């Protein structure tokens, strides 16, 4: 678990470092190794990436999540724009409760962020297994209906990646 966190953290840190510096040199590499080691120590202390799964299936699920996410992001923007432009503001907002099956912190963060960036939903609070979501156009206010409408499309992929 610690090894896994350290490995992901080092790879991520090196990508970040070379992306920032934008060139390959010995100096960049040497300083990068020192700095990334310190950063990875912080990540290991909190065990951030401890539950990420490594398998071809997880990779495919990650890509699938990314595709769904980008699609939803664009859809959400068109949706919001239509609401903004329409002469009469048509909204029907509510805060609804949904349940999630995800257990790991990183998976919940990814879920909440994807919910916030998708059509008309905004994560307001999280308590245990319940996410409280402000929904700009609430079609159902009970837990099951809302869960099906909001969470289900991301959860399947995220469950494979983050568990």
């Amino acid at each position: 678990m610690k090894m896994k966190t350290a490995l992901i953290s080092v790879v991520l840190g090196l990508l970040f470092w070379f992306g920032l510096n934008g060139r390959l040199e010995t100096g960049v590499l040497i300083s990068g190794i020192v700095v990334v080691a310190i950063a990875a120590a912080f990540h290991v202390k909190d065990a951030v990436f401890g539950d990420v799964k490594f398998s071809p299936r997880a990779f495919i699920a990650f890509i699938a999540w990314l595709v769904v996410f980008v699609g939803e992001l664009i859809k959400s923007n068109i949706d919001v724009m239509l609401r903004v432009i329409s002469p009469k503001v048509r909204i029907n907002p509510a805060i609804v409760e949904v349940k999630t099956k995800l257990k790991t912190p990183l998976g919940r963060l990814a879920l909440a962020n994807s919910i916030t960036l998708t059509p008309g939903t905004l994560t307001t609070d999280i308590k245990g297994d319940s996410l409280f979501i402000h929904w700009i156009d609430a079609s159902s206010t009970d837990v099951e209906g809302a869960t099906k409408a909001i969470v289900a499309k991301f959860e399947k992929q995220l469950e494979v990646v983050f568990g």
Partner: protein
Amino acid sequence: MVKKGFILLMIVALGFMLWDFVGNYSSKTELADVSSHYVEQGPEELGAANVVTSVVVTYRGLDTLGEVTILFAAAAVVGLLLHLNRNENEQRREGSELLKTGTALLFPLILLFGVYVFINGHLTPGGGFQGGAIIASAVVLSVLSDPNKKAGHTALTVIESLSGLTYVLLGAAGAILAVNGFLDNRILPLGEYGSLLSAGLIPAIYSVVGLKVGSELSSVVISFKGDSKEEEV
């Protein structure tokens, strides 16, 4: 009422002075002597692409030493005065779970970015002061996500004093080994222009300054936050 009139009078007077100043202003078309020397000779002389950095670190290095000293004094006084008068009895609301996870994920990356800013001070905009401020912002982020956490004062003090000592020693090494006196950067070879390990000592000096400023500003933030658990013991 008399006071208001007096204030207005004062502002109008200053406004007239500034009006005069603005009226006589015209932007220059060429540099003054010293500046043009810095801009035209500086890159070849010191090997640093960022002329502002070479002015701050080398040409006007003593000023920077004074500045760091003032910052240190301010941090010490803030810590002292806020320590004398504490009333911490209300527990703060915990940060949400998402914020905590986000902080655990982002905190090392922000530190990394801060290090990038001060280690590249001689090539890109930025340097020790900005990098130190970014590191202190990372500390602010961790304070926000978990306000009741105890802070590591000892580690900050150790980093601060070690980097301060290294800074002065590097400056003195410049005075002894190189030609131009205190804080000269040419005791190491200048290296290939435009690469990370170039410009002699400048990256080393700016890294040390960055660590020092970062730990000082973090200690200012932590003294403003105050330790709530310490008092109960």
